[in-house]
């Protein structure tokens, strides 16, 4: 299997990897705002992301739930927390499994053990997206400049994740805690979205200093 050869390679290239928004680290630090109008952005590098596609009535769902430690989320916005993994609902037959501690190749081989031949697709998508963490009292106001969703807490609750657009970039927007969001753009959009966020945060620096 391909996975078994990738495992040692993960360790080898660990020190050489460059994340999609790494070059913006300095700009993110400079753009940070503290105080009542505070908002900060940083990149959470190299989260493991595994794409999972399984149809609604598939018998594989029960086996996958046992492996993940959680039932697959049932509807739009739902996030399921399992053993060292979090599962995001992307569409009725598509999920994104995210982990901070389990390597992509390991997670893929675990999940494939629960999948019958042709019953579901499990693909390591860790390089597909990066993760930007936006947090602070003004985080919602920054996102509202470019997101068509209603981000008021009454319709976008903490602990939900939806697929939408920010600054015209297709992203997964995940409200991890109140005033703390994970934004998952595709790697090639990370530079644009990072700079868009820095620009959108600029006014709060002026408000905060005044």
């Amino acid at each position, binding site marked *: 299997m391909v996975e078994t050869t990738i495992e040692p390679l993960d360790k080898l290239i660990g020190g050489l990897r460059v994340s999609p928004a790494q070059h913006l680290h300095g700009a993110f630090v400079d753009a940070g705002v503290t105080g009542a109008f505070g908002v900060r952005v940083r990149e959470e590098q190299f989260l493991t992301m595994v794409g999972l596609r399984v149809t609604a009535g598939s018998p594989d769902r029960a086996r996958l739930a046992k492996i993940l430690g959680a039932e697959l989320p049932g*509807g*739009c916005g739902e996030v399921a927390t399992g053993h060292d993994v979090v599962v995001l609902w*992307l*569409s*009725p037959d*598509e999920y994104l499994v995210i982990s901070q501690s389990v390597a992509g190749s390991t997670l893929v081989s675990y999940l494939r053990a629960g999948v019958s031949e042709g019953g579901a697709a499990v693909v390591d998508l860790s390089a597909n997206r990066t993760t930007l963490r936006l947090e602070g009292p003004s985080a919602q106001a920054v996102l509202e400049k470019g997101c*068509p*969703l209603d981000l008021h807490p009454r319709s976008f609750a903490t602990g939900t994740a*939806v*697929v*939408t*657009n920010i600054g015209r970039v*297709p992203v997964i927007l995940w409200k991890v805690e109140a005033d703390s969001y994970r934004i998952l753009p595709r790697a090639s959009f990370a530079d644009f979205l990072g700079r868009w966020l820095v620009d959108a945060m600029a006014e709060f620096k002026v408000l905060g200093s005044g």
Partner: protein
Amino acid sequence: MILISCPDCGPRDETEFHYGGQAHVPYPEDPNALSDEEWGRYLFYRENTKGIFAERWVHSSGCRKWFNVLRDTVTYRIAAVYRAGEPRPTLEGGPQ
């Protein structure tokens, strides 16, 4: 801007969707049996309804699923949203 209720994701802005033209246009059972004119009619000829029109939309920056919408082409009011493959619903208030 119109607000479209995706059957899976709920109401979202029109900008998250793409339009797919008239709904319920079946693919010919045997395309090879059609004359050029019949094939041309299948490919290019569509209704140009004034009023309630059944059309396809895809939630391209959301769940990426296709579904059908009954929309009034005069007022832009959306009268019904239903999943791909489901029959066209009949609306209350007379024949459409």
